[in-house]
């Protein structure tokens, strides 16, 4: 188990991708805003903007399977989590600050690599769905010869 790798997935400024599939196996993707884990990634919660994640939520309601990738945009360090959805709910008001802070941190990182902060701030982020996943597999997703290798 790569402890450092998982720690980096809790750092601010991450770009989050989510993949699902419908019952016929047709895949779908959307961008998340934040992830959180309080149990060393036995489970993780990903926050998805309501405005853009309807299809993802619809897929999860039937198939429950989900892939989440957390990437550091500055060095492309990336980790993919796969597992089964335990819960999908509307995020609570007390989670709004966490989502806002994570988006702001991403805006800071993207600003440093050329995407203006004001542009990132126009990305819809609230209200959000909070989807909790039981993590079954963790993969190294950093581009390179090790991409796709299993780390847990």
């Amino acid at each position, binding site marked *: 188990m790569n402890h450092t790798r998982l720690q980096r997935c809790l750092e601010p400024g991450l770009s989050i991708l989510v*993949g699902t599939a419908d019952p016929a196996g*047709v895949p779908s*993707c959307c961008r998340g805003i934040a992830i959180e884990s309080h149990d060393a990634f036995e489970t993780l919660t990903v926050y998805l903007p309501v405005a853009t994640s309807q299809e993802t939520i619809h897929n999860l309601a039937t198939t429950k399977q989900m*892939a*989440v990738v957390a990437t550091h945009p500055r060095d492309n360090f990336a980790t*993919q989590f796969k597992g089964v959805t335990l819960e999908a709910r509307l995020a609570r008001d007390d989670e709004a600050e966490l989502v806002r802070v994570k988006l702001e941190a991403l805006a800071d990182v993207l600003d440093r690599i050329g995407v203006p902060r004001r542009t990132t701030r126009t990305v*819809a982020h609230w209200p959000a769905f909070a989807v909790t996943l039981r993590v079954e597999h963790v993969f190294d997703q950093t*581009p390179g010869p090790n991409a796709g290798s299993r780390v847990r």
Partner: protein
Amino acid sequence: MSVPLADIRRCFQGVIPSIIATADKTGLPNVVYVSQVYFVDDRHVALSCQFFSKTRRNLDENPVACAEVMDPVTLQSYRLRLKFLRSERSGPLFETMSLRIDAIASHTGMAGVFRLIAADVFEVVRAEMVTGFLTEAPVDVPAGASLEGMRTEMRGLQWVSERINRAVGLEALLSSVLEALEEYFNFSHTSVLLHDEANHRLTTMASRGYGASGIGAEVAIGEGLIGTVARERRLLRLTSLDADLRYGRAIRREAAEGSHALQAEIPLPGLPDAQSVLAIPLTIGDRLVGVIAAEDRDPMRFSEWHEAYLDILANQIALGIDRMIERGDEPADSPAPAEPATAAPSSAAPRRCTRRLTYYRQDDAIFVDDEYLIRNIPAKILWKVLGESMRTGRTEFSNREMRVDPSLGLPPVKDNLESRLILLRHRLQEKCPDLQIVSTGRGRFALRAEAAIEMTER
């Protein structure tokens, strides 16, 4: 909301990485960033297949995918519903996509490790705008060239053609071209490198926006962005260079932990913070004459219009250079021209100091006062005329006598003597201004020394 692919072409410039989701035969999803989504035509895109083995396996089991691409100016997101058709491992599409990856790989010292395995071609079943992705309506930025812009560019084409046609020498031709690119298109950082077949390298012969230090800079064929363009004889337009280099460096870092032997990273010539590059090979038939390159700090600086336009210009420039190289010699029966007023004999000027020139025979390199001056054939030429001048007092020379001297190692055809003399002249101006090579007419030059010369050979 469905949108035509042609309306979202900015999304395919690679400024913001795209994502692709696939699923295996059991429906287990996989999602990854993809380094390049290439616009093929109104109904097809191609994705670069490099390391995404899981994506690849999923497509074999379940040939459908969903990609999300983003407009780099507005950040508006679009979803593409894709049907996998085939993998191409050769052919024009593969080569076009491969060139970009090869160039980045070479630049980051990853040639051969970081490469395109296949161009995966998909039918775009539907492209749709992700409604609600932005909380504010994106600012409408017109895409493509306006009629006014096209008029300006047509005028620019006419102007450059005229300059190429009228140029009296290679140096004038190259500087006119770069001047025109700045005047008409605001390309303020440009360079022209000429191919030296004798040593398989490209040498910077003219530059604009970098200061004099760019002249004489060399790139080996196949090395870095420009060297890759030269080797492949194909135009390269890179946007978001910084993102591409970060991606390449991530792979380099990962690969460095394995057993791959890596080359040292080649410093990017020119702007240290360039975000976009346009490099165009100058060719006549299959023969490489050189490369013309432009770079900018704006990641969106070069559009497809520039690519097509500069490709036309490149053909004219290549022909112009070739013409200059062909006619470098004086006619056999022409008399030596009268001495121009600017090339006054060196003996008339007071000698102020002593310059110590050292020729390192093993490296074919000349140093002046312990500072590198020049190497290879231009160094041999300088050493020959300096020696002749010291022995006989002669200061006038002809291109023809250089060509017939086998010790200089000039190739028998297309010897680029003119460009080698230009390079020598520039290097002397920069590093030893009191020693000059002065053109005294077609196919002739003179050596002018305003300092005492001390020659040492090692």
